[in-house]
């Protein structure tokens, strides 16, 4: 009988499920509001706005989903590499794929010094994994493996599809606001296709305003919710990646190295660094994100804070260290 060390993080899953539900709820409320407005509104310009916004939203979302790999590679300026060109990188990816029983994605390297890695693609078959040269320079093999396992978890969790669907609502709402605004700017005042005679102008303007208001509110709410969902997906990918490699501290160390702040763990000897301790410069980050959850930057960021990620990885480390006690 095999025990498992893969204790599921029920709290994270519950929060993610709740966020997905809320996004769906806002979407439904949006549709209802638009339908109600449409019922009172027969002008061609109003119907046109909504129709075009929906169509454009669908086209943009679907396009970015379907061609996500090509778009991402082109944006990053990345080049696909063969096993001969990057043997170590391919070796790491090979082994992770064998460990996770996943098909091997295409591998690309982007010539940027900024350390970064991403994996994208609408399905495992067209998935592509990209790392920057800066990342390869800074991390050792263990840490690189942790980062790649995190990225491959995104592919396994179908994050491209999930985030596209979730942000579809936000895109549509934003487009609706924009089209309503322009239509009011260019077309308002002249069109008189409302019901009855003479009352057309008064009907058009407030309803277009109402459409804009609905769009703005929906966009704002969905924006916050989508960022929240993105942060949960990142934590989830951290967790899956760490459990796949069995080395959460390697991923933690990679995150610290890559975080872009001054390195937390100094390399200078204490005795050499002693004079500096007199000028106590705290890390640039601890002021903002050390506090509670409600700061604006926390609300809008797509990734959880470094502290939060390290804490979650520590939990996994503890789970792996517990000998004798099962999950």
């Amino acid at each position, binding site marked *: *009988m*095999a*025990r*498992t*060390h*893969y204790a*599921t993080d029920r709290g*994270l*899953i519950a929060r*993610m*499920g709740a966020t*997905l539900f809320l996004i769906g709820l806002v979407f439904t409320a949006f549709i209802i509001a638009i339908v109600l407005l449409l019922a009172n509104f027969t002008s061609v310009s109003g119907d046109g706005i909504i129709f075009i916004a929906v169509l454009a939203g669908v086209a943009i979302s679907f396009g970015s989903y379907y061609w996500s790999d090509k778009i991402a590679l082109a944006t990053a300026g990345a080049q696909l590499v063969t*096993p001969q060109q990057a*043997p170590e990188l391919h*070796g*790491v990816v*090979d*082994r992770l*794929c*064998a*460990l*996770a*029983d996943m*098909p*091997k994605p295409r591998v690309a390297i982007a010539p940027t010094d900024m350390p970064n890695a991403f994996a994208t693609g609408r399905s495992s078959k067209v998935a592509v994994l990209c790392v920057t040269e800066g990342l390869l320079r800074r991390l050792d*093999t*263990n840490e690189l*493996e942790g980062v790649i396992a995190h990225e491959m*978890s995104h592919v*396994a*969790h*179908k994050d491209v599809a*999930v985030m596209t669907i979730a942000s579809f609502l936000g895109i549509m709402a934003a487009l609706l606001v924009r089209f309503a605004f322009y239509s009011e700017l260019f077309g308002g005042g002249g069109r008189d296709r409302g019901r009855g005679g003479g009352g057309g102008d008064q009907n058009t303007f407030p309803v277009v305003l109402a459409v804009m208001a609905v769009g703005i509110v929906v966009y704002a709410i969905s924006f916050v919710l989508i960022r929240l969902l993105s942060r*949960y*997906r990142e934590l*989830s*990918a951290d*967790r*899956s990646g760490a*459990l*796949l*490699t*069995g*080395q*959460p*501290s390697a991923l933690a160390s990679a995150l610290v190295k890559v975080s872009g702040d001054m390195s937390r763990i100094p390399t200078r000897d204490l005795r050499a660094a002693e004079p500096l301790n007199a000028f106590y410069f705290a890390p640039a980050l601890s002021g903002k994100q050390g506090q509670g959850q409600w700061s604006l930057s926390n609300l809008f960021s797509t990734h959880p804070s470094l502290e939060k990620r390290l804490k979650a990885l520590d939990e996994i*480390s503890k789970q*792996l*260290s*517990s*000998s*004798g006690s*099962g999950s």
Partner: protein
Amino acid sequence: MGFLDALLGRTKPVLPKLDNLFGLPSAAITLQAATDYLPTGVGSVCFRAAEGKAFSDIEKDVTDLLNMGENKTPIKVTSDSYGYTWVVATHATDDIEGLVTDLHAVNYSLEGGGFGPQLLCTILGFTDQAKHPLGLVYLYKRGTFYPFAPRPGENRDNATELRIKGVLVNDLKFESDLSRWFPVWGAPGL
């Protein structure tokens, strides 16, 4: 992984399939009859070492278990440049069954300790008259085999690999997806 699991980010670890290993002794005999590849008596298990005391305890138990018994070459535990650990067992070249049993004991102990998902592969080593190495690699997560014939300078002898597959197709379950025949450069015993 089911759709709902993927959606909610609940990765299920892939569990290894252990029992197909026992097809190896008869495969070694077939190989000996049909080609001039003979077993070297060296077999290894590769796994991704996890951090923490739980894993190092199991690793120690496994090596102790395998080192029990008289007249046995001691087990070697090495780690490679990717950070994966290899447990290498050596038996007499005609005792493939004993070797496979030992390798299975390693897998079984790791799985019993809850570390089944860390298992990567097992390799059984062969060599021919011209001293070319050949490994039969077993992928735990797929439950399938594939041949690996490395040549100097990180090259593979694909023709030989396909030929070996043809010879052994009735003894072992081979990996049908060629893109999963990953090279294992620098594996001990090859």
